[in-house]
């Protein structure tokens, strides 16, 4: 059982300063622009499942390592708080997170409260028009500095792309019970260029396990 992290090395507290909403009062809202040391990622997907089911999967924070890249473990430390660990090649970052808003079947918002990462996020589950499942929209906010760099080192993608990939994994996991993977399949000798390309294509990033318990 992890203990809560008490200190926040990044002096600045993340203020959750935007909403994942794409439409307000009938108008389209563009995603927030990167500025003041904050970077944003907004992405969405149409998922063939009920909003309540998808909410439950997302809200079950301890199962996040099943579908989030390079997430080693997540442990609940309170009703709305949890401890997150990412680890790769001896590099490790960890942080505590708290849920700020929790509307079953509709929306979850969170932010980090201590540790190596200053991040915040929101996910909204909307019923898609025309019986096309659920429209899932995610907005995540990262503070530049140690975290963004560490994230990139550990995950092997910039945080924006990892938000996109994680939603893709979430969707595949929810729709099929697995995440498509090619790691571990046979091939002939790769050679030096082949190895370089593998990392260029993002294929060195471990595909989340999907079916195994965290």
């Amino acid at each position, binding site marked *: 059982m992890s203990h809560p992290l008490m200190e926040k090395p990044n002096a600045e507290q993340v203020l959750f300063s935007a909403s994942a909403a794409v439409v307000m009062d009938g108008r389209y809202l563009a995603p927030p622009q990167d500025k003041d040391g904050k970077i944003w990622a907004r992405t969405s997907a149409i998922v063939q499942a009920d909003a309540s089911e998808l909410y439950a999967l997302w809200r079950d924070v301890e199962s996040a390592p099943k579908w989030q890249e390079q997430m080693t473990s997540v442990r609940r430390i309170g009703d709305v708080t949890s401890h997150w660990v990412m680890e790769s090649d001896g590099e490790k970052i960890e942080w505590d997170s708290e849920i700020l808003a929790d509307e079953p079947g509709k929306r979850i918002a969170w932010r980090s409260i201590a540790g190596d990462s200053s991040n915040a996020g929101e996910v909204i589950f909307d019923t898609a028009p025309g019986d096309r499942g659920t429209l899932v929209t995610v907005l995540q906010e990262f503070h530049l500095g140690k975290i963004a760099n560490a994230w990139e080192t550990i995950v092997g993608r910039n945080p924006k792309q990892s938000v996109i990939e994680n939603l893709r994994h979430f969707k595949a996991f929810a729709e099929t019970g697995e995440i498509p993977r090619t790691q*571990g399949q046979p*091939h002939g000798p790769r050679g030096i*260029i082949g190895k370089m*390309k593998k990392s260029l294509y993002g294929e060195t990033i471990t595909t989340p396990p999907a079916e195994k318990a965290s």
Partner: protein
Amino acid sequence: MKAVCWMGTGKLETLNVPDPTLLNPHDAIIKITRTAICGSDLHLYDGFIPTMEAGDILGHEFMGLIEEVGNDVTNLKRGDRVVVPFTIACGNCLFCRKKLWSACDNTNPNSHLMEAAYGYSGSGLFGYSHMMGGYAGGQAQYARVPFANVGPLKIESDLPDEKVLFLSDIFPTGYMAAENAQIQPGDTVAVWGCGPVGQFTIASAFMLGAGRVIAIDRFPERLKLARSLGAITVDYSEEDVNVLTALKDLTGGIGPDACIDAVGLEAHSTELQGVYDKVKTSLLLETDRPGVLRQAIQAVRKGGTVSIPGVYGGLLDKVPFGAAFGKGITMKMGQTNMHNYMKPLLERIEQGQIDPSYLISHRITLDEAPEMYKVWRDKKDNVTKIVIDPWAEKGSA
């Protein structure tokens, strides 16, 4: 196991590699009994498809026996004989539910590569570059088949492999091209390209009620096969033949009701005569490919349909859009939605309406495959279709 590996442009080797294993719960491992080389594999051989890596196993047309299934595959068991579609589909995403299987959202682990290049991602494919998923292909003794609960077609009858193997790609691809041509009974249909896909397009056009099919190519062996299906052939390489004039002559001046561009898949190999340097070659590829499409748009009758099964990968230059608009034509195209066609086409084979094995000109071993790629690419030895027995020893296939 033995597998045909891409080791660089123009460089293939048959190598010993590890056997595949189950990686996901919907996987199956298939012991391959027959596999084929596709015209589109020649694009990989010639280095035209980006994101290939040394060591990649080629091949997307294969069939075999189920060796092992993952925990969540309930419809197949060890020993079942199956044909595997070259596009991989999950069965559960919005696109699969709409039966647009080749647009599946959940089977390409490298969607980001395709999104970066094209702004969208299609389904994963076997043995066809990392952008298309990076899946190991089927020119091998075994293959791992993801989403085996959705794709593989079980063959319950005792039809030989060679009669059903082409359900893995070229028969459905040719059939969808004909279906996309919106053929009405008695229509005249022109087909550019009499390679494997063109052949099945011609056969399918007749199945769908075409009154006359006009086949356009320059290789005598292909034109002969097209005539054997009942098509009228036009050899565009003959000195005094002009394709547009020929099509007018054969339709009382109005043009065919439907025009099908089945050249895309083999465009580079039909257009190249001799050895060009690589830069010229890729330039030719870019300029010549839309050549057939331009002709098809110019030739089709007012209100007719242009269908495009040929693979286009980039931007087209100087497409006669004014003629397309002026004539009010319909254009239909796209990667084959394999899963819609495999079963109904198997029934046609079982009923004896068609024997797809008529196309096969060469039967080889895995060891002979690298050399046969070269023979086919260089248009030698009258190749129409090459089939591989992955278990045959050299010289015995």
